[in-house]
Structures are given as structure tokens and as C-alpha cells.
């Protein structure tokens, strides 16, 4: 009996076993072929007769049905599905001519009926690439995430990510991790940091300082008021807190730069540079402390531009199309530069940018995207700069002739020109320096330079230190003795100037720059020579590739060079990663970028700045500030990203973090850890007070009734210095180091006092592995037991202990919930099962500190194999109380040794803790 329907059987046709119930003999009379089991041959009762009519009719119905089924084109499948496999060809559905001819008609018919709805026809490529259309398209694409000026250069070479309202290059598409590292340590690495936000404060010095002092604390190091920074000779950096709440509520890391005092004016100008994630918090706080809440209506046309942009663009386009003189149009030359200015990614285009206070007279200006900031990292960055830039040439002009440009006007002022000459001399002296780390940290040098596009080399060259000859001479002095004839006096002059520069830095009056002046900045931006004009000038040069001269009047740019210190703390790799920051007026980004690249620098993206900070052993802004609002936001994003990444893998290929005993592979619960250690230390203290009354005088000091508040990162320098001394093993070498800043040795009373003062604090540490191993993100830091340390004492390069595997109790629950979901999905059940991811602890975490066999102290926030140290290095946080309790228990020679375990591993490895102040 066949109950089964044919696959493409029309619905009106039925074959049923009973289609001839009435006609039972007809059924019996059906001819059957083949062997039938039950019959053991043919049916026993053969029909005596067949009625021809009924039989034929029945068969006719069957044949009809079959024919219908065959002829009807199936709705869901293609014509070529009818073909046997060996006759099918690639792209048959696309091109019907690849089908055999007999099927073509059907296929054509089908294609006609299936015609997709007509796609809007794109403009031709030529039309799309037309300049105006291209710019419109670019503007549309950066409506949500703003592009930097170097965006197109980057987009061709980098993996771009959309972050913080900008499109930023993350890492280059070619493989150059090691070359970039080599560039940082031997030559020069270039980065575009224009996405950093600049906030300008304008006001009287004492009022500004009074307002800003609420945001900082002297405990953490130099403040806004530190003398060298205040004079404008140095750039400073500090951590900003919410007004008056010093140990708690930090906001983040900022760098700042004061404008040198100008004669005859009591007003000072201050630039605060902050990361875009931090900017809104900082701006609100600054407005609060400066009492600046009156938004000033935007009067500058530049700022009003973005909102009304598309309309005038279109109308001018429409006007211009019929006429052919677009190129000669004067307005057009300034248009591209004006078009590039598009507000920024951290605020909406309509929000105000200036606030002022009638009470204090302070003006806050949001200068985001008004300045371009490039960072050059590496010992040769100054040679790249001296190679690329040339101090501005004077323009020879009649003094009576007035010009609208700023430089010709300036040239008439003799004192200004003298200053410019001094600055140019200083810049020239930079050439005699061998490494950028020789200079005083944070030195600022102001300069006016010629347009660097004027002498672009025809080929990429490697900028090398200029002083090869000079040093040859020097070595002869050293090795052979006696001066070299003819060259004896040359180095002496150079030498004297160089000493002056490295020892005293740049004198104050040389730090004064026109970049601080908004009118000059705007004039320079508006009058930039377009690339096209430059190319035309290049065409007319007699010797191809030579410098363009004379310098056009608009070709002078005020810039600021800011020295970035390298690794300052600690004893290893001092000065690694020093470099220069280059500040430019907006619009000039590409004009400086390409010439810099032509001097053989490498270009790095976001991930290289992370590596730079890691090798330099400094905290990187949103990553290593988990107590700041920006850091918390960053952690949220990171968690979501990691979870996504984890879920993309098939469940069987994911590490089961529950079995590995890792509670938080995606996000570190700092608050919970700090609270737990607070409890543990309280218990320990109570035990001790029961044991002996000796320690009792300590406990009232902290006031034990304080409620556990939010955790903070320890940034007080005196406490950090204590901790850093305690972490070192007291070998002979350690004792010599300790002589520098002597402090109390590690004792119970001193330790408990420190714990008492910083109960909810975590401390930032640098960790280096003693043997092999590569630390990873969110690796766990644990305290070794006494046996572990004995193991280490026996063998210096000992492998660490193993964590016994844990049991996963949640797996069965996930399976069950999935099953129940299949049958029926009640609301509560689905919500529970959606939380459960295989291998991750569901949300209320158990005690993090005591979950594993070793006591947990903290987590790693960045870790990698360090190419500069030659071993795995990590940066992370440890709770202060946990660290101190561990240190006290450890024997003196192993002090500061901890264990590290990667989230996807059961193996502990020994690490050395360094706290550097």
C-alpha cells in the first residue's frame, strides 16, 4: 500500500489505497509486478476478469497525475535541479545559456517571473568619483563616526574600528608587529592622536589655579600649579578627581600645557588634553569648579558650518555644473578645507563649545578637532622632525605693504623675528642629539615652519641622525687621542649648545607660540595652499624633485613640539619609548603626515599605543583605570565584545571556564574582590587583637565603622613608595636600591597601618614572569603557599603548581533548560537559560578570593610577551590588603613573588611583582 505522496503531486490528484473502495474487484485486478512477501509469489486470487473501461479510467487518472507532476515547474527549486549532477554547470541559475537547450525556455520563463525588483541604478563610477560628489559621500559616511584628517590614508592601510565617535586605525593590514616594535625602540613610530580632546581654559592665573586645585591632590604628584609646568616650559600629566573628593571618584588621566606668560596680560591660557571617553565627565566637572555655565552662542562661522552643510553644498554644486570655470572660481579653493571641519565625535554638532562665567571670568573653550596631534615615538624621532621641518624663512617685503596673512605682518616686528631666530637655533641644536630620551621630560619647543610639502623627497628615505660626522670626530678623540685637524672647533660649539639644551631645557620665552592664538590658527587653516597649486608649482621646477622656491606667503605654519618622556620609573630600560608630539592647526594634518611618512617612519595604530604603554610600564587610559567612569564603560564594552567572541565558537571548542576554576574571564569584579579582602583583613585583625593587645593602638586609627564604599586605585605616592620597597626581596642588590629613599621596613604595625588607610584600594603593578609563559588578558594573580615557595627555592626556573580541575554543575542545568525550552517555553525558564552560557559562571559569583586552591589577589589587565624584556610581562591590579598580607607571610628572599594563572589554563606560574614610583 502506498500512502506516500509523490513529491510534486498536484493537490487535486489523490492516490489513495482506497480510491476504488467501491470497486473492490478493480483493486484486486491491479497488476502487480515483483515479489510480494505475504503472497510468496502472485496473489492467490487472480481476478477472473477485468472490466476494460474502469481499468483504463483508473490508469488514465494515474497517468494524468504523473504527467501533471512532471510538467509543473516546482516553485522552490531551480530548473537545473532536474539535471543529473554531471550535467550541472557553475552559475547556471545566473546564465541560462549554460543550460541544455531543451530546458532553456522553462528557465527563461522562470527568470522572467522571478525578476527581482529593479535596483536603483548607481551613478557611474566617474560621476561618483567627481570631487564634489565624493566629498558629499564622505560627509555622509562620517555623520556618525567622525574621520580624522588622515582617515583616507589610514583606511587604505589599516583595519579601521569605530570607537569613541571616531573612525580610528586599529592595526595595519600588513604584518608588522615586530617592525613596529623595532621602530619604537630604534627608529621612529608615528601615530595620529588627533582624536584626543583639547579643552582650553582662559582666565586669571590665581582664579584658574584655585578652581583647578579642587580637582587634584598633591599626594599623587605634581599638580596644575607645579612651577615648571606653570611657566609653560613643560607639559604635565596628572589624574583628575571629582571636585574635592580626592581618594575616591577619580575621573581619569589628562595632560596639560600652560601658555607662557605674555607681557602686559594677567590672563593665562591652559590646554587640557583628555581621552574622548573622559571628555564629557571632565568638561562637566570643569564647568562646575569654574562656575562656568553660561553657554556662549556660537559666533564663529566654522562651528556653525556642519549643521547647515549639505544644503549650500548642493546649491553651489547645482550652480556650478553648467559653467565650466569651476577651477578658476576663487571660492572653490577654500571650500575643501572648510568642508573638512565637521565638529567632532564627542558632542553633537549643535551643542555649544564655549562657556564663560561672569563670576570668575573664566572662559572654557572646547577645542576638540581644532588641533591636530601627531605622536612620534622612538629614539630617532627628533631626527625625523629635523629632517622634515625647516624653520620658516623670512619673507622679504616692503614694510609699507600690508598683508592679510599673519607671517608677513610678523616679519616687520624685529623682536618677534629675533625670537623666531632663537627658536630656529634651538631646533637646529636638536640635530646634535643622539636619542630623544636625552632631553628633559616634557620639554616644549615652539616653532614656525615652512610648509613641509615644499621639499618632499622623491623617494622614501630613512631619516638618520645628522651627527655622523661629528661623532666620528668624537670617537677619534676618545680612541686615538688628539683632535682631528680641521674639525676641532666644530663640535665644541655644537657641544656647548647641546649641553645647554639637555640640562636646562628650552628657555621660557622660546615656548611662546602663535598656535595658542585662535585668529592665527584660523588664518593658517583658511589660507592653506591646496595640493593642486603645489603640484602646478612642482611642474614648473627646473630640476624635478628639488625644493620649491620661493616659499609662498601662506606657507608658514606655527607648530608646537612637545617632548614625551619615555620610561621614567624603575631601573630597567630607562628612557624607552621617548618621543615628540607635534601639534598643528587643523587642516594641516595631511600636509605634515605624508612628509613624515616619507622620512621612513612606521605608522602604528591603536594597538601599538597599547603596546607602547605596556613596554613603557605606564597605565593606558581607559584600560587601566577601572575605577574611573570611563574605565567602567570600557569594561562594559570589552565584556560584550569578549562574550560575542566566545559565543561565536562552537560550544565544544570553548574553554569551560567553570572547570578551569576561572570565575571572571570576561570582566574583573574589582568591587567584589576589594570587599572580600576588606572582610578578610578585618577578620585577621580581630584575630590578632584577641591574640595580643600589642596591635590595639592601630585599629582606632582607621575608624572601623566605615562602610565599604567604592574601590579605588591607590595613587598616593608615599604609600606607593612604601609598597614598592616592601615588594623587593632584600638581596644585596635590593639593599643598595633601598638606600635611595629610605623607609620603614616591613613590620606588622606598619603594614596594618597601611592596610587600615587603604582598605578598599587596589594597586597597579607590573609583573614579570620568572620562567616561561605568556600572560593573557584577565589572568589571575594568586598568592603562593609555603610549599610553592619551597619549590621555587629548590629550583630557580621551577614550573609552578597545578590547579585541580573543578566540576561544572551548570552544564546539566543548561541541558535541562534547553530540553524544557523545546517542549514548552515558560517565560521564567527562558530568561534563566539565556543567562547561562556553557562554561561561564552565572551572575551571582561565589567568593572570588577563595574559589581556587590559591588565594586570589587580583587580575591582569594587559599581558603579552614583552619583546624588550625577553619574557612575559603583564600589568594588573592587586588589592593592597591582599598584597600586604601575602608579603608579611613570605620569607625575605622570596618577597614579592606571586603566582599567575591564565584564564584558560590550570597551570600556575611564578611572577615577580614590581611597583615603581
Amino acid at each position, binding site marked *: 500500500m502506498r500512502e506516500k505522496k509523490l513529491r510534486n503531486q498536484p493537490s487535486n490528484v489523490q492516490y489513495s489505497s482506497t480510491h476504488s473502495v467501491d470497486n473492490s474487484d478493480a483493486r484486486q485486478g491491479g497488476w502487480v509486478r515483483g515479489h510480494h512477501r505475504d503472497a510468496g509469489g502472485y496473489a492467490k486470487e487472480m481476478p477472473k476478469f477485468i472490466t476494460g473501461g474502469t481499468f483504463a479510467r483508473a490508469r488514465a487518472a494515474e497517468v494524468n497525475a504523473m504527467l501533471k507532476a512532471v510538467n509543473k515547474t516546482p516553485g522552490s527549486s531551480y530548473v537545473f535541479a532536474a539535471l543529473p549532477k554531471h550535467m550541472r554547470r557553475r552559475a547556471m541559475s545566473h546564465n541560462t545559456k549554460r543550460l541544455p537547450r531543451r530546458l532553456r525556455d522553462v528557465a527563461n520563463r522562470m527568470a522572467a517571473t522571478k525578476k527581482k525588483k529593479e535596483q536603483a541604478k548607481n551613478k557611474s563610477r566617474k560621476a561618483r568619483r567627481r570631487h564634489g560628489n565624493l566629498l558629499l559621500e564622505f560627509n555622509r559616511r562620517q555623520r556618525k563616526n567622525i574621520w580624522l584628517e588622515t582617515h583616507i590614508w589610514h583606511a587604505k592601510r589599516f583595519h579601521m574600528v569605530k570607537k569613541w565617535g571616531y573612525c580610528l586605525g586599529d592595526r595595519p593590514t600588513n604584518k608588522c608587529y615586530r617592525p613596529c616594535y623595532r621602530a619604537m625602540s630604534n627608529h621612529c613610530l608615528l601615530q595620529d592622536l588627533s582624536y584626543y580632546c583639547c579643552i582650553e581654559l582662559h582666565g586669571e592665573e590665581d582664579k584658574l589655579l584655585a578652581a583647578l586645585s579642587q580637582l587634584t591632590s598633591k599626594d599623587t604628584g605634581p599638580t596644575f600649579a607645579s612651577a615648571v609646568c606653570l611657566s609653560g616650559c613643560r607639559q604635565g600629566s596628572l589624574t583628575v578627581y571629582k571636585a574635592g573628593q580626592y581618594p575616591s571618584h577619580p575621573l581619569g588621566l589628562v595632560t596639560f600645557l600652560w601658555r607662557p606668560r605674555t607681557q602686559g596680560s594677567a590672563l593665562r591660557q591652559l590646554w587640557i588634553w583628555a581621552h574622548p571617553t573622559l571628555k564629557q565627565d571632565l568638561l562637566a566637572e570643569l564647568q562646575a569648579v569654574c562656575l562656568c555655565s553660561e553657554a556662549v552662542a556660537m559666533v564663529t562661522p566654522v562651528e556653525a558650518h556642519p549643521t547647515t552643510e549639505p544644503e549650500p553644498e548642493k546649491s553651489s554644486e547645482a550652480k556650478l555644473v553648467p559653467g565650466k570655470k569651476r577651477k578658476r572660481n576663487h571660492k572653490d579653493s577654500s571650500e575643501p578645507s572648510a568642508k573638512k571641519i565637521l565638529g567632532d565625535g564627542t558632542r553633537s554638532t549643535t551643542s555649544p563649545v564655549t562657556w564663560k562665567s561672569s563670576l570668575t571670568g573664566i572662559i572654557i573653550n572646547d577645542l576638540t578637532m581644532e588641533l591636530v596631534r601627531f605622536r612620534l615615538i622612538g629614539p630617532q624621532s627628533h631626527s625625523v622632525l629635523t629632517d622634515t621641518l625647516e624653520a620658516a624663512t623670512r619673507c622679504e617685503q616692503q614694510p609699507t605693504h600690508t598683508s592679510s596673512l599673519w607671517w608677513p605682518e610678523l616679519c616687520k616686528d624685529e623682536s618677534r623675528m629675533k625670537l623666531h631666530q632663537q627658536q630656529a637655533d634651538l631646533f637646529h641644536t636638536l640635530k646634535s642629539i643622539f636619542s630623544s630620551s636625552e632631553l628633559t621630560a616634557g620639554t616644549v619647543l615652539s616653532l614656525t615652519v615652512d610648509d613641509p610639502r615644499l621639499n618632499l623627497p622623491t623617494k622614501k628615505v630613512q631619516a638618520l641622525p645628522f651627527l655622523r660626522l661629528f661623532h666620528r670626530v668624537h*670617537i677619534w678623540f676618545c680612541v686615538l687621542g688628539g683632535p682631528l685637524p680641521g674639525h676641532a672647533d666644530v663640535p665644541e660649539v655644537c657641544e656647548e649648545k647641546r649641553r645647554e639644551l639637555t640640562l636646562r631645557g628650552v628657555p621660557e620665552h622660546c615656548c611662546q607660540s602663535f598656535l595658542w592664538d585662535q585668529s592665527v590658527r584660523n588664518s593658517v587653516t583658511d589660507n592653506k595652499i591646496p595640493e593642486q597649486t603645489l603640484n602646478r608649482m612642482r611642474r614648473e621646477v627646473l630640476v624635478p624633485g628639488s625644493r620649491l622656491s620661493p616659499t609662498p606667503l601662506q606657507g608658514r605654519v606655527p607648530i608646537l613640539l612637545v617632548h614625551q618622556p619615555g620610561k621614567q620609573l624603575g631601573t630597567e630600560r630607562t628612557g624607552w619609548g621617548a618621543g615628540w608630539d607635534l601639534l598643528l592647526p587643523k587642516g594641516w594634518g595631511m600636509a605634515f603626515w605624508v612628509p613624515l611618512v616619507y622620512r621612513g617612519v612606521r605608522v602604528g595604530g591603536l594597538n601599538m599605543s597599547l603596546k607602547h604603554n605596556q613596554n613603557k610600564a605606564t597605565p593606558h587610559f581607559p584600560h587601566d583605570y577601572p575605577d574611573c567612569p570611563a574605565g567602567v564603560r570600557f569594561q562594559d564594552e570589552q565584556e560584550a565584545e569578549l562574550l560575542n567572541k566566545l559565543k561565536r565558537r562552537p560550544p565544544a571548542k570553548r574553554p569551560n571556564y567553570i572547570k578551569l576554576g576561572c570565575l571572571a574571564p570576561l570582566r574583573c569584579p574589582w568591587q567584589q574582590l576589594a570587599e572580600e579582602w576588606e572582610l578578610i583583613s578585618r577578620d585577621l585583625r580581630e584575630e590578632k587583637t584577641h591574640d595580643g593587645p600589642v596591635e590595639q593602638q592601630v585599629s582606632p586609627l582607621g575608624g572601623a565603622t566605615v562602610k565599604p564604599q567604592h574601590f579605588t586605585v591607590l595613587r598616593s605616592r608615599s604609600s606607593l613608595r612604601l609598597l614598592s620597597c616592601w615588594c623587593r626581596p632584600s638581596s644585596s642588590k635590593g639593599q643598595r636600591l633601598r638606600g635611595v629613599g629610605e623607609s620603614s621596613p616591613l613590620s606588622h604595625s606598619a603594614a596594618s597601618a597601611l592596610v587600615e588607610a587603604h582598605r578598599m584600594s587596589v594597586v597597579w603593578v607590573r609583573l614579570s614572569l620568572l620562567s616561561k609563559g605568556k600572560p593573557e588578558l584577565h589572568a589571575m594573580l594568586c598568592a603562593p603557599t609555603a610549599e610553592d615557595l619551597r619549590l621555587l627555592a629548590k629550583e630557580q626556573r621551577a614550573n609552578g603548581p597545578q590547579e585541580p580541575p573543578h566540576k561544572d554543575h551548570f552544564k546539566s542545568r543548561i541541558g535541562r533548560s534547553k530540553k524544557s525550552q523545546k517542549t514548552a517555553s515558560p517565560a521564567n525558564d527562558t530568561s534563566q537559560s539565556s543567562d547561562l552560557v556553557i562554561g561561564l559562571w552565572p551572575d551571582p559569583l561565589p567568593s572570588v578570593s577563595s574559589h581556587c586552591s590559591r588565594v586570589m589577589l587580583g587580575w591582569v589587565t594587559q599581558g603579552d610577551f614583552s619583546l624588550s624584556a625577553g619574557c612575559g610581562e603583564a600589568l594588573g591590579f592587586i588589592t593592597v590588603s591582599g598584597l600586604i598580607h601575602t608579603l608579611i607571610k613570605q620569607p625575605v628572599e622570596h618577597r614579592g613573588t606571586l603566582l599567575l594563572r591564565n584564564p584558560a589554563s590550570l597551570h600556575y606560574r611564578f611572577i615577580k611583582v614590581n611597583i615603581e614610583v
Partner: protein
Amino acid sequence: MTDPRNPDSASQAIEMDPVEYTLRKRLPRKLPKRRNDVYVNMKTDFRAQLARCQKLLEGGAHREICVHGLGLAINRAINIALQLQASSQGALQLAANTSTVELVDDLEPEDPDEAGEPMTRTRNNSAIHIKVFTEFPTPAKG
């Protein structure tokens, strides 16, 4: 002896209180390196540095190499040079020169607002430059 640079004796006499200042030593001034310059330090393994010198000499590219040592590393530089000579069975000769290198220290005040400027001071340290060369060809370029 090489050029004796006269240090500013006035700036040397700063009395500093270790509590109020943090001392940061800058790296000694880097000198450019030819291929045959070897700067000896105390961090790298002695044998590795010796092997490097031997490789340079035996490679045939260089007739002479210069071994430089500063401060604590002077001892080691001498040691390396003597070892080279001893292992060459008299083929190598030494010519040593000493010099004075000026080093820079930064003094950062602990309380930056009141103590005023961070200071820099210079001090001198001794250095040695040993030329290791094969005997017969006259020292080139001299």
C-alpha cells in the same frame, strides 16, 4: 687622555635632601655605533659579550674592534680585551684609552608646587676605550 671637559663646579655643590627630591638618572649619552664598536654592560652575560667580540674579529670583516666600558663596566671591558688577547696566541694587540663621561641626573622635588624647579646636575664617570687589533697591518685611518 682625551678632552677633559670642565664641569660646572658651581652646580655640583647643590645640597640635596633625599626626602624632598627624587633622583632619576638619565641614561649616559649614546654614541653612534660602527659595526666594530662593542659597548660592554653589566647586564648581559660575560661569555656572550666575549663571544660577540670573537665573532667580530674572526669574521674577517674587521681588523680592529673597539671595546667601550663605562663606570662599573670598565673592569669587564678590560677583562674581555685581555681574554681576547690571551686566546689569540699573541696575534692581537691592545691600545687602551680612558676618558671622562658626563652624566646627567634629574632631581624631582617631592612637593613640586613649593620647592620650585626640578634640578638637573651633572657628574662625571670614567670610561675606557680599548682598541683590539691585529698586529701586522698598520692601524688604518690613524
